[in-house]
């Protein structure tokens, strides 16, 4: 057991810091600090910078454009990214479908899709959920019927984050109704510009458009866009869900949130003092911080296990549960810190075209939407109830 970073790791950290400090565009950093939504072009701009440095996908194997770093270096990298308020990685390409393609895809698929995921040129979204298939994903009904070299896809997907700005969607579709539900599912990569695909916005409680309901009417998908075997899609999907859960654990992001919370609590006044001096509020921040630290150590332990060749299994569910609960706790404390200034809800304030003075403190406007949207974290990626079911079964043998 050893917690200290090696000299090599420390030097690496300095390198990453120097690089980010020199290359992160100031306008992007500013938006991130204020909690403004970062636009697609800005995210792409930053990803391109990382790509040119060879750092676009730290976790990918080197042969596909990854870095070949060990778990410690990847961890350090994430830490530094959070330290500098770099834009969040959009998970669908880099963290989800990318690893899926290099693990289960054929050479043609790897050559076609991996490069543009790395550069950020092509954006992906996830087409799993349906109106009737949420937690019970295997009951999905969107049909793909073979017709020569194509599948013809019909059905409805929902809750598709970013579908309105995505170039591609990775989809679970039903190719067979025989046997167990899980055994008739295939995994397709679908070009969002294909005729017959129609995403419709769903406005969420934060008032924003992240989500979509996507209708598929006679959408033709070349068979070569199927990952792996027909009717084996469930295996690939499950692989991916594991990745999703680990990425939702968000240690670095939550540290960033904790820093923001402390900054805000230091600015806010209560009884003539700074709110962070208030024993009750300070106690709550401390409690959240302790939870975050223990979550971080759980993460590190599991990463070390993985590095030692024991892949993370159902324990990923633990990371997902704690990570999302901590995120919700921090966003909730942040709106609490704002007192009455949680109330104003002028969406335009979040746009970079807003040039009037802020209502109340300038950090206020972004916090309520973040709090509201964070309520989804315990629902998506397999709800926390479902994660607890998984742990009960797989880890505890209940």
């Amino acid at each position, binding site marked *: 057991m050893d917690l200290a970073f090696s000299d090599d790791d420390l030097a690496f950290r300095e390198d990453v810091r120097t690089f980010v400090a020199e290359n992160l565009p100031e306008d992007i950093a500013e938006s991130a600090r204020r909690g403004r939504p970062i636009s697609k072009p800005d995210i792409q701009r930053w990803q391109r910078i990382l790509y040119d440095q060879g750092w676009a996908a730290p976790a990918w194997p080197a042969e596909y454009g990854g870095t070949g770093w060990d778990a410690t270096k990847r961890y350090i990298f994430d830490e530094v990214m959070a330290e500098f308020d770099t834009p969040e990685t959009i998970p669908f390409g880099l963290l989800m479908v990318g690893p899926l393609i290099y693990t289960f895809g054929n050479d043609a698929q790897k050559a076609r899709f991996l490069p543009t995921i790395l550069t950020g040129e092509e954006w992906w979204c996830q087409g799993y959920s349906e109106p009737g298939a949420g937690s019970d994903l295997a009951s999905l009904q969107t049909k793909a019927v073979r017709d020569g070299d194509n599948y013809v896809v019909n059905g409805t997907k929902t809750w598709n984050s970013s579908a309105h700005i995505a170039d591609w969607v990775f989809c679970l579709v039903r190719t067979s109704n025989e046997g167990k539900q899980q055994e008739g599912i295939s995994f397709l990569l679908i070009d969002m510009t294909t005729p017959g695909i129609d995403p419709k916005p*769903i406005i*969420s*409680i934060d008032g924003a458009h992240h*989500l979509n309901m996507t209708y598929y009417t006679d959408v033709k998908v070349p068979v070569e866009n199927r990952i792996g075997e027909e009717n084996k899609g469930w295996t690939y999907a499950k692989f991916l869900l594991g990745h999703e859960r680990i990425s939702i654990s968000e240690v670095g992001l939550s540290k960033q949130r904790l820093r923001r919370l402390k900054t805000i609590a230091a600015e806010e006044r209560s009884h003539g003092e700074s709110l962070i001096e208030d024993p009750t509020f300070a106690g709550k921040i401390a409690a959240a911080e302790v939870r975050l630290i223990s979550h971080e150590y759980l993460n590190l332990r599991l990463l070390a296990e993985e590095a030692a060749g024991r892949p993370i299994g159902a324990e990923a569910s633990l990371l997902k549960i704690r990570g999302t609960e901590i995120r919700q706790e921090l966003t909730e404390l942040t709106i609490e810190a704002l007192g*009455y200034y*949680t109330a104003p809800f002028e969406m335009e304030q979040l746009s970079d075209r807003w040039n009037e003075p802020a209502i109340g403190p300038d950090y206020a406007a972004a916090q309520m939407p973040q709090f509201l949207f964070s309520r989804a974290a315990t629902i998506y990626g397999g709800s926390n109830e479902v994660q607890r079911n998984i742990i009960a079964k797989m880890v505890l043998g209940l």
Partner: protein
Amino acid sequence: MDFSLSEEQQMLKDSVQRFVRDEYELEARRKLVASDIGYSEANWAKMAELGWLALSLPEEYGGIGGNAVDTMVLMEEFGRGLVVEPYMTSIIIGGGFLMAGGSAAQKTVLLPKLAAGELKLAFAYAERQSRFDLNDVECKAEKSGDGYTITGHKGVVFHAATADKIIVSARTSGGSRDEDGITLFLVDNNCSGLTRRDYPTVDGLRASEVEMDGVTVGADAVLGSVGGGAALMEEVVGLAIAAICAEAVGCMDVLQETTNEYLKTRVQFGVPLSKFQVLQHRMVDMFMECEQARSMCYMVNLKVGDEDPVERAKSVSAAKVQIGNSGRFVGQQSVQLHGGMGMTDELHVGHYFKRLTMIDTMFGNKDHHLKRYADL
């Protein structure tokens, strides 16, 4: 001891329920929220006509003379409908101030108008540094001639844009957080020196930042005694808290009923979600929170008139703490148990959740009131 409603209260409840059913379909509310002023003048007129604006006001000034429990009955139904008309600011707070501190002249002129729906009031108390401390007032009122000149900034003043007069807390003496030296003024909304920045709030209401730069008012604008505003605010805010607790109970009941219904109809894994024991127990916990919140709501509305100021203040703070805790749990869990649907703007669940979240902030959140309770 008796926890039942009187016949009149039951009738009032029925009639508010009817109003909410007729006027407050989710779509209708959505339109109101998006409209220019953020609520409906027609609804306001109807409330006047039905006598609701007069409910808590004294009979000698055109009111009905109802008590806190009457208001509670009404507010609970308003909570069920997420009603957006400025009842809280105008009638409960504005009317409350006039009754508790108004001069004979102020009462005679203003209360009948309030009851008739011809006058609206708002209450400007919060400041950037004040957080939930009503007595943390830096806004200044200086004697000038017969009257006063007011200068300062007030934040998140609910329904200021549509108010005819704004009740402003300002310091006439003492240091920033002294209890003594705060005076309340009735300030005309359109007077010179007053500028507003109006905006919507997250729970579908309207509020404003109010800037006063040398606003001059006459001596007759003073509400209550000069320098004695703190006690007056405490009394009236106590009434407001009692009323908002009732609103919260209405919100929570809707969420509890809807979520229960949803779990029974939403099928996953081949069975209704209501068959999963974790969800059953979560629902039971929500139900218990609702029952506890309702108990405290009755308690505070029965005690808000208590002669013993400590007992009154303790009741108010205890209720606010309970409502904050219950509202948080019920609101968050309703979203959670609705899954993705709970996150949509389309469904009413999120709107109730947002209102409950903001109710915790109004007039001091649970931490504030827990501390106040401990200090009493």
